């Protein structure tokens, strides 16, 4: 324990662990996505490379690595090269504060929630810069779409998070998880006595997370039938690969946050089978269940039109999330106010 608490060792372990985790997830979630798409459409999915297609991510990686990295003439070189870095860095940093288990986290910061949501917005910046720097009309349209979409969906997401913050009273993610201990009825998702609309807030959070990570049915940024490949049109080889990996890294972060905030993080749904070994397993089980749901949603619904997307946010999600915010405030503070008055 003393060896692990030495600062450089901790940093090194974090770097290696997080990079391996993100890399493995990005590679194998692509396979899971393709396999899932196949199953839903009643095909086997990739099944030629290795046993049942298990080597497909390796083959894809080698293919992408062997391609020429090309910067088209006329682009803004600096921004063009910076965009893949900016899209990959935020999820890596966000994973610092996410508690995988009771003692399994890189940093126990008491503003972890704020860190995740402030860095989450940089992803948008990166897509916008990538699109802008490409000097390609499709990429620029895509960049504009990404910005308006993310502005629209940040608001309900943050309103939901504020609602949750009022319930938890802390921004420390590990404390938020600890508050949800003692069975699944203590999870924030089911705390209907604090706010009868708590499951609805979870649905809003999930929808906003889909929109923030530019996943179908909200993948306006890379609507290939209209915009070729959207913001990554001019990227090839590993530049494109990094954008692709970042998409899955962002999904991992988003689903981790949903798990931590609503589904009790590393807490066991029953009181049994908890502890330092089972905790991370519960966390991963919940996180991957959410990720599979994200994949499932993608292969169920067609892409929405852009005005439908903005209507959903401004006309439905924002009013409902404002209402839940007010309702939570009322449920928490009204008895106190009445007590003072009478």
């Amino acid at each position, binding site marked *: 324990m003393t060896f692990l608490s030495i600062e450089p060792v901790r940093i090194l372990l974090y770097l290696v662990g997080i990079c391996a985790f993100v890399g493995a997830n990005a590679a194998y979630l692509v396979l899971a996505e393709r396999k899932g798409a196949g199953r*839903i459409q009643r095909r086997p999915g990739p099944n030629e490379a290795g046993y049942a297609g298990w080597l497909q991510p390796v083959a894809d990686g080698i293919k992408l690595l062997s391609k020429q990295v090309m910067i088209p003439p006329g682009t803004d070189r600096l921004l063009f090269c910076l965009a893949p870095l900016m899209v990959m860095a935020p999820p890596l940093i966000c994973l610092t504060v996410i508690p995988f288990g009771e003692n399994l986290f890189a940093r126990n910061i008491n503003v972890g929630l704020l860190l995740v949501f402030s860095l989450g917005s940089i992803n948008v910046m990166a897509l916008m810069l990538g699109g802008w720097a490409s000097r390609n009309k499709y990429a620029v349209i895509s960049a504009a779409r990404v910005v308006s979409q993310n502005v629209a969906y940040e608001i309900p997401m943050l309103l939901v998070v504020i609602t949750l913050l009022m319930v938890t009273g802390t921004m420390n993610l590990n404390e938020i998880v600890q508050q949800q201990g003692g069975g699944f009825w203590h999870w924030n998702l089911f705390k209907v006595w604090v706010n009868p609309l708590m499951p609805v807030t979870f649905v809003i959070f999930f929808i906003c997370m889909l929109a923030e990570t530019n996943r179908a049915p909200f993948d306006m940024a890379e609507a290939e039938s209209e915009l070729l490949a959207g913001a990554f049109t001019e990227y090839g080889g590993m530049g494109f690969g990094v954008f692709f990996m970042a998409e899955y890294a962002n999904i991992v972060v988003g689903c981790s946050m949903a798990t931590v905030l609503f589904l009790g993080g590393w807490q066991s749904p029953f009181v049994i089978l908890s502890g330092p070994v089972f905790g991370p397993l519960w966390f991963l089980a919940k996180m991957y269940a959410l990720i599979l749901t994200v994949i499932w949603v993608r292969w169920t619904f067609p892409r929405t039109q852009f005005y439908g997307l903005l209507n959903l946010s401004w006309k439905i999600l924002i009013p409902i999330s404002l209402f839940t915010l007010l309702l939570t405030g009322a449920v928490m503070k009204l008895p106190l106010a009445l007590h003072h008055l009478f």
Partner: protein
Amino acid sequence: MKMKAAFQEVYGGFMSLLTGMRITLGQAFKPVITVQYPRQTLKMPARFRGHIQLVLDPKTGKSRCTACKLCERACPSDCIAVDGAKLEGQKRKSVTDYQLDFTTCSLCGSCVEACPFDAIEFSKEYNVVAFSRDAFNHMDLVQRLAARREIWAQNQPPAPPPPEPPSPAPVAAPAPASQPQNPA
């Protein structure tokens, strides 16, 4: 009332999304229907029309064709050429050469309809690909029949031994031996 309608629209919309997700989940657990083509193949339906072939009579292992040339005359594309000869010890002629020019055949089926002996049929062969047209402009159907006959011969049970000539008089069984003896 407008408020209520708006809420109903949101609720109904959300429920329809859940219905969609239930359907895709149901599909995901049904068996995969892909046929891994080079390794697995589908059985062709009964009315599939491949190139024509000579019918192999399952009793004799030979063709029923008598080289009457009705198919040759029925063919609108003029792609059939039949030749026959009378073999020794047979009443009818039998086919010795059946050339099909599959490059001009339109699979109209007139030849199959015209045949009075049901001696030609559509094959179920759909892998008709080659590097040159020579593979198809003189298809020797008699030769192809011979190849099929070999497979047919392997699957035939060995020919039964010729029946023994009947014995002139059946030997009568000794009558007393068949009667059970009564000890009493």
